[in-house]
């Protein structure tokens, strides 16, 4: 147990700070364990479908796993960098990030390759860069900072000062990502991020309703202006009606998932990966995973995602300030909505969207930005309070820390204070 002198010194340091960030403690290693488990599952699946993928792509069986290993290593490096970067630093990156994002978004449209009607990639040398991931990341940083400062200045309920800029941002995203890139899946993820962050920032419900109205309008416009999306919607409404053409991927995904059964076909025994299911390393990887590992495996994977969200939620509740709270909220929304859209499409409950499954899908850009974002969360987890605020207490920003901020989950302050 911790000696009381250390306890004392920590109390002392609290008052020496400018109180923006409370004292540093052990980060959330369980979060890290969950992330590594999810990445490992991704690597195992990519490794085992290598031979199937090589059939139609004309590369060696180890091509995909080698590149994915590099992506994971780069992701871990990104994670390490953001985990050690001071939180305040992100406020300075807002503008550069937004400028780079806009350039990237336009570059995708100009230089990018169309895949299934959407522009998502820029080829740079032998690597392809997915601009969406950068845009999501920039949006996250900007919106968390913006909302935190609006809360601070008490303008969070002000239509002109708070909601209008968000709606403007929404409009720009709608035009750029949905309109220019034709990437509706990513647009949905971004809108959900904005909505959830605004919701957690306590933007009044009425105003969120306006926000949702704009989203619905954007979706309607997006569907109405693209025949390829109308086809997808029709396919969604009647998936089995056209298994040969537009409904092919949906049907094959369902076949992959369903034929997995309870225990799955086994690691090396996926058949659908051998050319039947398109995008089996990227957008369809959940279906391949379900085919290999069955209901047992899909339940475990969903449980891992659930555990990730539990850890993120616990961190959000214990965040030392609004900026970090909104950041983690945005990240949780990002990961969850993206995972739900991806998995939902594979099990036939959401229209098919070209979107990756975080941690699992093949692709470096997604893994790098997701890992960078989680590095920020990991960083924040060093500064969380021990308990969740439950009532309004006068006089202290960190009311709960009076009776001892601790390493979250690892030590009980009651026990240590007894010493």
């Amino acid at each position: 147990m911790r000696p009381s002198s250390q306890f004392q010194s920590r109390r002392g340091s609290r008052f020496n700070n400018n109180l923006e960030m409370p004292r540093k403690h052990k980060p959330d290693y369980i979060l890290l364990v969950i992330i590594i488990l999810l990445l490992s599952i991704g690597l195992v699946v990519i490794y085992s479908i290598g031979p199937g993928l090589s059939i139609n792509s004309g590369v060696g069986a180890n091509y995909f796993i080698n590149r994915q290993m590099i992506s994971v290593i780069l992701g871990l490096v990104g994670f390490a960098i953001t985990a050690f970067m001071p939180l305040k630093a992100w406020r300075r990156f807002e503008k550069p990030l937004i400028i780079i994002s806009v350039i990237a978004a336009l570059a995708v449209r100009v230089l990018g390759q169309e895949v299934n009607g959407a522009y998502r990639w820029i080829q740079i040398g032998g690597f392809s860069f997915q601009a969406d991931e950068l845009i999501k990341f920039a949006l996250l940083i900007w919106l968390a900072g913006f909302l935190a400062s609006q809360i601070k200045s008490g303008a969070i309920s002000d239509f002109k000062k708070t909601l209008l800029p968000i709606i403007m941002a929404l409009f720009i995203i709608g035009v750029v990502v949905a309109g220019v890139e034709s990437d509706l899946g990513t647009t949905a993820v971004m809108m959900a991020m904005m909505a959830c962050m605004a919701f957690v920032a306590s933007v009044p419900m009425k105003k969120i309703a306006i926000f949702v109205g704009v989203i619905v309008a954007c979706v309607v416009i997006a569907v109405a202006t693209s025949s390829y999306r109308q086809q997808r919607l029709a396919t969604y409404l009647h998936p089995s009606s056209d298994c040969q053409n537009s409904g092919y991927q949906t049907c094959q995904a369902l076949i992959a998932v369903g034929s997995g059964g309870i225990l799955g076909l086994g690691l090396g025994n996926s058949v659908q990966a051998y050319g039947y299911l398109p995008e089996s390393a990227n957008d369809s990887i959940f279906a391949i995973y379900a085919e290999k590992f069955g209901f047992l495996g899909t339940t475990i994977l969903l449980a891992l995602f659930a555990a990730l969200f539990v850890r993120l939620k616990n961190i959000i509740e214990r965040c030392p300030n609004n900026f970090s709270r909104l950041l983690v909220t945005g990240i949780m929304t990002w990961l969850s909505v993206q995972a739900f859209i991806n998995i939902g499409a594979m099990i036939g409950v959401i229209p098919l969207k070209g979107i990756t499954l975080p941690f699992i899908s093949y692709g470096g850009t997604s893994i790098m930005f997701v890992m960078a974002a989680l590095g920020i969360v990991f960083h924040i987890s060093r500064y969380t309070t021990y308990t969740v605020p439950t009532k309004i207490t006068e006089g202290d920003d960190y009311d709960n820390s009076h009776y001892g901020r601790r390493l979250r989950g690892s030590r009980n302050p009651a026990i240590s204070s007894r010493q």
Partner: protein
Amino acid sequence: MNMNNSNKSFNLKAIRNINLIFIFLMFIIGFFVIRLFYIQVIRYSYYKQSALNDQLVQSKIPATRGLIEAHDGNQIIPIVLNQELFTVYADPSLVKNVNNMADKLVGVLGGSKSKIVTLANTKNTRYVVLAKKISQSQSDKILGFHIPGLGTIGQDYRVYPQGDLVSQTLGFVGDNSKGSYGLEQSMNSQLSGKPGYLKAITDINGVPLAASKNNINISPVNGKNIVLTIDVAIQKQLQEIIQNAAQSEKSPLISAVIMDPNSGAIKAIANYPTYNPSDYSSVTNQNIFTNAAVSNSIEPGSTLKVFTASAALNQGVIKQNTTYYDPSHWLIDGFNITNIEEDGGSGIKSVEDVLNLSLNTGATWMLMQMGGGQINLKAREAWYNYMTNHFRFGKITGLDQGYESGGIVPKPDIPFQSGDQQNLAYANTSFGQGLSVSALQMDSALSSVINGGTYYKPYLVDGTTDSQGNIAYNKPTIVNRDVVNAGTTKSIIALMQQVVSKHYQSGFTYLNFPSNYIVGGKTGTAQVPDPKGGYTDNIFNGTYIGFVGGNKPQYAIAIFVTTPTVSGYAGSYGAQPIFGNIVHMLINESYVSPIGN
């Protein structure tokens, strides 16, 4: 840090809102688990079946049909090969732009665009054949268009590098991969092999995945390659000779068989008219498909006198140099047996004269000798025994050909038709009327008479080749060792040689063969049965049997010429020139070893 109440309440509100979001996330995850349970557990068998519908391939793997080869001098060369050709098909329900597809197909295949458009617009079907037997490169081009609903499927077809060579003997292979007529039909099971069977989980391209445990993969057993006894060069020239004869003599059908009398191996067998098996579908008269030398039996006429003489000689009732008084006509059962005009009238005649002048009365005399001086049951039974058991007339030879005719030999004790006079009927058979035989039967029987008395089963398949190209040769099959004795053979050879030399002397100058070869033969001019009864008196079939050799006969030849238009007897003027040409060809091209070698 300035904190006020509103910030505090924000904290609490944020916590409450994040909890709402979190509950929503957990609800979605819960919903997904339920949905997955439904898909993966409850609906498992449905999706498993759907997966198998796509992934499981169950198919026959066709076996490669065996090649057919033949001798060409000292070499073995293929005369029937396989080539993969492609059928172009379309699924009309998937072809969106029929016009465009038709344009592209015509660009590759040529032909009529409107025909393709009509076919591709066929309603209520998902499979129409647009073109057949296109090449690999044409198929590749068509597949390169990537038109949905358009495809090609490969199939092995027979290729005949020698055109119509031995066509009727070979037969052909139909679209159903089954042999029709000839060797393709009679040896279908050996040639076709055994198809394999594949049941496997495959990738999208149909390649079996090694992973699945229940794969069944039975390799096909390819058909055997067979080597024919046919000599390609002799066969080619025989076909040329009978084709020329058929055209100059205006004969509707000529058949000829050249056999090795010492083994029964058929060196050449041909009929004219013939056809090219690669183009069998354009044949309108199906009779052309049959091998007439095997399946067509006719009344052979005077060529049969060789066998009458053989039977009489072998029974010892006559000798090679026996002479007798020939009255120039015999009255039998109230009918006159007479000769042709050039018989020289009544007088003392020899056995040589009987064959040389082709005396019907002489053949009848020989039959009489078998009955002790007259045609009676003893004579009939003795002659019947020789015809059916020695010379095997009336019985099929068992050659590897379908539709073989055994011919008809009247019974010695039961009238063939009620009211028939047995003795007259038997007198007729002694000079080749009133019984029917095929060219193959004639040649096989002749072989047995000139080879010392061994009847070999005639055969076309010399052996089979294994995958390394080694040939396992078949042995000749002996049916009967005691057809005639050696003395009879010697006499018959001499008598037949004498026939050829006498004919040469009487003006058939083309029978001028070098003296270091033995050449023997016998003509036959047969009356043709009239459908109304009796015989017609203006058309005749010409037949010829003969041999060529050195120390012993090496080739036995039988020729049937149907109703030639010639000035003279059908045997001497229709069939004999063909024999002459064949023997010259065999001698000139050194197929025959001369005397002393």
